[in-house]
């Protein structure tokens, strides 16, 4: 029997429920601009969560996750444009393709003992390979881009993901919540503990009888599959896809900033990081507008300096010290 006190949410639980209520009610008060920013935050929180499973939990550093976003986006968009397949069905194909690619890369890398920096660069190589490949893939528009039909929608069509920002907001909110719950469940599963063991010391994990190859494969495949879902969202939200943008290394970097700044390997790190970074970018834009600086690049310089300061001062990211300060999570790693 569990103690009844365990069932009552603690400070963290109350804060989380409060946050959930606020987020659910947000579209009632937020204007379109604020809603767009919230969508951006949730998008980065979601992709960060997906990346975190492979690189944070299992410790296999990937710098090429834009590959999975791009594959998801292109598969679902191509099925929709060429065959009229609804995105929720296209999603299944997108996830299958991305998971298969993840499995392929994982199989090749882990079979041959590629790890650390080498794995990171291998993942970049596959993403770059895809970028140049899609540049020459005429069926989906090549380097000229691939476009979804755009119109002004009077009513929301959730089945075909055509509608106004509010609908997209709820879709990405649901996805982010689901990813958070899934990560939570994974961390407390047998597989999750195996991942942490592999991350901390792979040799020791193997010595204890953990099938490290299979565990790492599971991490890549789950992470790739989740990331591709974000790609489907990306395609239908932005309605245009350019290989130069979707698969570019800067997209991969953008996607891992949130979990690393927030706190790699933690549950709430990606969310906190996404809020901070998107808030920082928008805040900088506003501040520069106020002071009348509008040279291209100036925002990114400040952004870079902020990143530099954060990684220098907070080696574990923002969330772990923040959680300790707020006494939300006394335990490590959660």
């Amino acid at each position, binding site marked *: 029997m569990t103690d009844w006190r365990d069932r009552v949410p603690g400070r963290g639980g109350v804060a989380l429920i409060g946050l959930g209520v606020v987020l659910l009610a947000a579209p009632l008060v937020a204007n379109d601009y604020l809603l767009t920013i919230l969508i951006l935050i949730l998008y980065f929180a979601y992709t960060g969560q997906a990346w975190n499973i492979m*690189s944070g939990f299992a410790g296999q*550093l990937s*710098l090429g996750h834009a590959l999975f976003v791009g594959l998801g986006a292109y598969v679902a968009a191509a099925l929709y444009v060429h065959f009229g397949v609804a995105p929720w069905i296209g999603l299944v194909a997108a996830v299958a393709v991305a998971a298969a690619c993840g499995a392929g890369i994982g199989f*090749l*890398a882990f079979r*041959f*003992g*590629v790890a*650390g*920096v*080498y794995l*990171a*660069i*291998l993942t*970049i*190589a*596959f993403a*770059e*390979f895809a970028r*140049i*490949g899609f*540049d*020459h893939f005429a069926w989906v528009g090549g*380097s000229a881009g691939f476009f979804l039909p755009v119109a002004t929608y009077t009513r929301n069509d959730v089945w075909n993901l055509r509608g106004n920002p509010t609908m997209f907001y709820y879709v990405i909110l649901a996805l982010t919540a689901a990813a958070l719950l899934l990560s939570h469940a994974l961390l407390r599963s047998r597989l999750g503990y195996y991942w942490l063991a592999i991350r901390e010391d792979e040799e020791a994990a193997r010595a204890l009888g953990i099938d490290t190859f299979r565990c790492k494969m599971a991490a890549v495949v789950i992470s790739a599959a989740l990331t591709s879902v974000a790609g489907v969202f990306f395609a239908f939200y932005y309605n245009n896809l350019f290989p130069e943008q979707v698969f570019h*290394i*800067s997209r991969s*970097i953008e996607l*891992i*900033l949130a979990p*690393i*700044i927030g706190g*790699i390997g933690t549950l709430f790190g990606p969310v906190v990081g996404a809020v901070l970074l998107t808030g920082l970018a928008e805040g900088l834009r506003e501040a520069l507008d106020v002071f009348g600086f509008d*040279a*291209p*690049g*100036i925002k*990114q*310089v400040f*952004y*870079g*300096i902020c*990143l*530099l300061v954060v*990684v*220098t001062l907070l*080696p574990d990211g923002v969330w772990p010290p923040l959680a300790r300060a707020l006494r939300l999570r006394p335990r490590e790693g959660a």
Partner: protein
Amino acid sequence: MPAEIYLNVAVSGLLTGLVYGLMALGLSVIFGVVRVVNFAHGEMMTIAMYLAIVLFAAFRLDPLVMMVPIAGVLFALGYAMQAGLISPFINRPEHMQFMLLVAVAMIIVNTLLILFGPDARNVQTSYAFDSFAVGPLIVDATKVYAGGAAIVAASALFAFFRRARIGTAIRACADNYTGALVVGLDVKRLYALTFGLGAACVGAAGSMLVLLVDVTPALGPSYTLLAFVIVITGGLGSMPGALLGGVLIGFTEALAGLLFTPSAKSMFAFAILVLVLLFRPQGLLGKKVA
């Protein structure tokens, strides 16, 4: 197509590859000793490229002559970066080092963008259109000079690591960090020196490359990637490997540009990288990782 064309393209690819090799040599030296992957490598090279362009535009100073002072400036930059910024990150996990250097790269690219704007710039030397004819071969003079200078610079670095006392001390740090500390080497200073030397390599390579390519601030990331591809192909940490990798990649890109569309040429470089990582992860000339 006649065979001469292939030969011409192959030779010019090989010469460009030597410059690539010098750039990658810097990355390899830094990783081999400091064990940090310099994700701002290509961006540091764009600093050197803009220095060369500014010096040429303002004082008509030839980039090939300016190679030495520019390498000196980059050395100072690299030394300061390692001593001031990267040093506390030596024992932190890879992803944190990565994040730090990505931030540095972001600052460099965008500062250059603010200073010079997004337009492509180049250097028009008096010998820009000269060429040497050797039998059926016609080779651009700029490529011959650049390739030759790359060989000189790389040889100087080899000699330094083999002959100079400090070079030996740096190799000692790379072989055994704790041992180096025990015998009383100032490892922190040697690391900064190494980072400076790696930066000097990109400095020299950058001032040669302005003779061959148009420069934009956005060039940085693609050269960082190119340096990775070369260094991993040749063997991360191996100095001859970096040069061999550079030549191989330069050669492949040139031939692929001729046989297929030029825009697809870097696909072949990445294909080589993937094959090397899978079948010889330590690189062509790298030592087996224990």
